[in-house]
């Protein structure tokens, strides 16, 4: 079988996840032995419309971008959503908590009506087209990315953790952030990052999104034990959880 052709596309985002691909450095050269990059605007001037795997970074925030991602979907056999902006809408979904016209006026003042400033509700990629694989995180974890791409290239199914960050955090023997009087989203957030935030002395803010069935009751118990309210939890969850499909918001 010839090497699968890979194209990378970006939508509304900070491009930090593409940067993690660049940051693979030598390992990127290894990956290129498995797949052939054919379009990657950020790194190459060459480009092609024929590809097997499309990697999509960023959120969908404009009607014209919905069309563009649909075209990409039509051309690609496999579509990978790269990073929180693409998998769950990420930080861009904070915008959905406001009236969109008001948001535009706030940032652009009297120019808010100009057509290219059009914006719609932020959507994760799978709210517009079918997504085959998700690389979670803001930014993605480099080794998880190579693992998933390798699996796809070799025709294997990647296994993504569906247990909470707390599991990885406890393995690293961190003192729990709740002990410091802080709120940490580790109990409901999908592991796979190896808990860098609690390990650095900061709370988990849930950039990998919720596990499939977050144990909301357990999270509530923890909140109660440490004298925190559900409102406190919601304030923290708004960052990466605005509009996430989960019962945890109820």
């Amino acid at each position, binding site marked *: 079988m010839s090497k699968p052709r890979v194209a990378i596309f970006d939508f509304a985002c900070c491009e930090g996840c593409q940067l993690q691909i*660049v940051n693979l450095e030598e390992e990127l050269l290894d990956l290129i032995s498995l797949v052939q990059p054919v379009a990657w605007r950020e790194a190459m001037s060459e480009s092609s419309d024929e590809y097997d795997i499309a990697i999509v970074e960023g959120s969908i925030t404009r009607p014209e971008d919905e069309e563009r991602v649909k075209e990409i979907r039509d051309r690609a056999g496999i579509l990978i959503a790269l990073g929180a902006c693409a998998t769950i809408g990420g930080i861009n979904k904070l915008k959905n*908590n406001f009236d969109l016209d008001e948001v535009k006026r706030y*940032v652009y003042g009297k120019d808010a009506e100009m057509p290219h400033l059009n914006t719609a509700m932020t959507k994760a990629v799978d709210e517009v087209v079918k997504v085959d694989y998700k690389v979670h995180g803001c930014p993605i974890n480099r080794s998880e990315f190579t693992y998933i791409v390798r699996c796809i290239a070799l025709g294997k199914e990647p296994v993504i953790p569906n247990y909470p960050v707390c599991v990885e955090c406890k393995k690293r023997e961190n003192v729990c952030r709740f002990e410091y009087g802080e709120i940490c989203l580790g109990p409901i957030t999908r592991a796979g990052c190896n808990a860098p935030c609690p390990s650095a002395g900061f709370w988990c803010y849930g950039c990998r999104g919720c596990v499939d069935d977050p144990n909301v009751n357990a999270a509530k118990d923890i909140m109660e034990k440490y004298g925190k309210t559900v409102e406190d939890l919601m304030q923290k969850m708004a960052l990466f959880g605005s509009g996430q499909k989960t019962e945890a918001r109820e």
Partner: protein
Amino acid sequence: MSQSIDINVHHLTRVEGHGNIVIKADDGTIEKVEWQVPEAPRFFEAMVRGRSWMDIQTITCRICGICSISHSLASIKATEDAMGIGVSEQTRKLRLLTHCAEQLQSHSLHVGYLAAPDLFGVKSVVPLVASHPDVVKTVIRIHRVSNEWSDLLGGRTTHPITIVPGGHLTPFNENDLRGLKKTIEETTVPDLKTLAEVILSVADKLPAFDRPTEYIALSGPDYYTFYDGDIASSDVDEKVSVREFEKVANEYVSPQSTAKWARWHRESYAVGALARFNINADRLLPLAAETAKKFGLEKGCCNPYMNNVAQVVECVQVCEHGIQLIDELLSAGLKPEERNVTVKAGTGVGCVEAPRGILFHKYTYDEDGICTGANICIPTNENHANIQKDFEVLVPQFIGRGKEELQQMLEMLVRSYDPCISCSAHYLDVKFA
């Protein structure tokens, strides 16, 4: 010579974000010269409202993946300014050291991966892997060390965790700092010397094009600053306090288009490595000063293509400064610190030099520490008008060279500014033909 030229570069490659170049010339008359920025706007200033002071850095560092450390620093400085929070000398030095990592990260990425292909006459770094393997390996090594440096000081490579209001988290120890110093000294400094030689050998590919320009950068009293100081201009002696940045970054509507540009003393100004060099060159450390000399880069340079060279000089500068900072931190001893934050209402400004130029964050908080308003002014936006002004002078001057060469020059020009268009929280200068 009469010429009909139609250049339309849609989504310029090897820049961060999306930008278009449109040039139309008919029979020698230039009808249109435009630099367009159709990036999807992201509305950060609106989105931070209603969020707690504790979460603002986590949100605003996501403006840009490449300069997330700079956005984090500008963000927490603004919060600290708003609430009157002070930091220790250790915290200040750890921040400076973290910031050095980002300059090296961003500049080496830009010069090595995105700009170098132009100098070698190829379309991306991929062909260079085969034709110049040693050069590519050197760039990779420099970039990898800069990433490890950010990993250590920032808690990870992109979107740092350790940069918090009132302090700097320390998930590392003195030995880690010693190890980092050794790597910089023994690997990165020699690698940078090699890289500088390589760039010097192809520097004649940088077009000779001068246009008198106003340069703006932070200027501190005693060192080549990316963090402290006031706003300085190459046009005047008087400096402006960062709290008054809105006086400097004046947005205005250009007569040729409906777009907003930024200006201070002229129609446009430039920020970034060349601006900092032009303002602060006499404060460079010895090796960095020597590097500038090798390239013949002198204060007062107004060739925008030389921004690439200024970035190489700054790579050397941040390594030298980084080594100094580590020595100072080690001789004082790394101590665990308490953070003292008393939440109060107020408005504050934070300013740092991002790799691409001076960056401002301004927030207002209520008495509960909830953000009620924000204004963020980003270097790439500040440069857009200057790119357009360069185009307007460059196109008539070089139109005789034909479409292909002109297009290459224009693309290189935009890439020289290293525009991180995804940063654009405001849009600037967009006009659709």
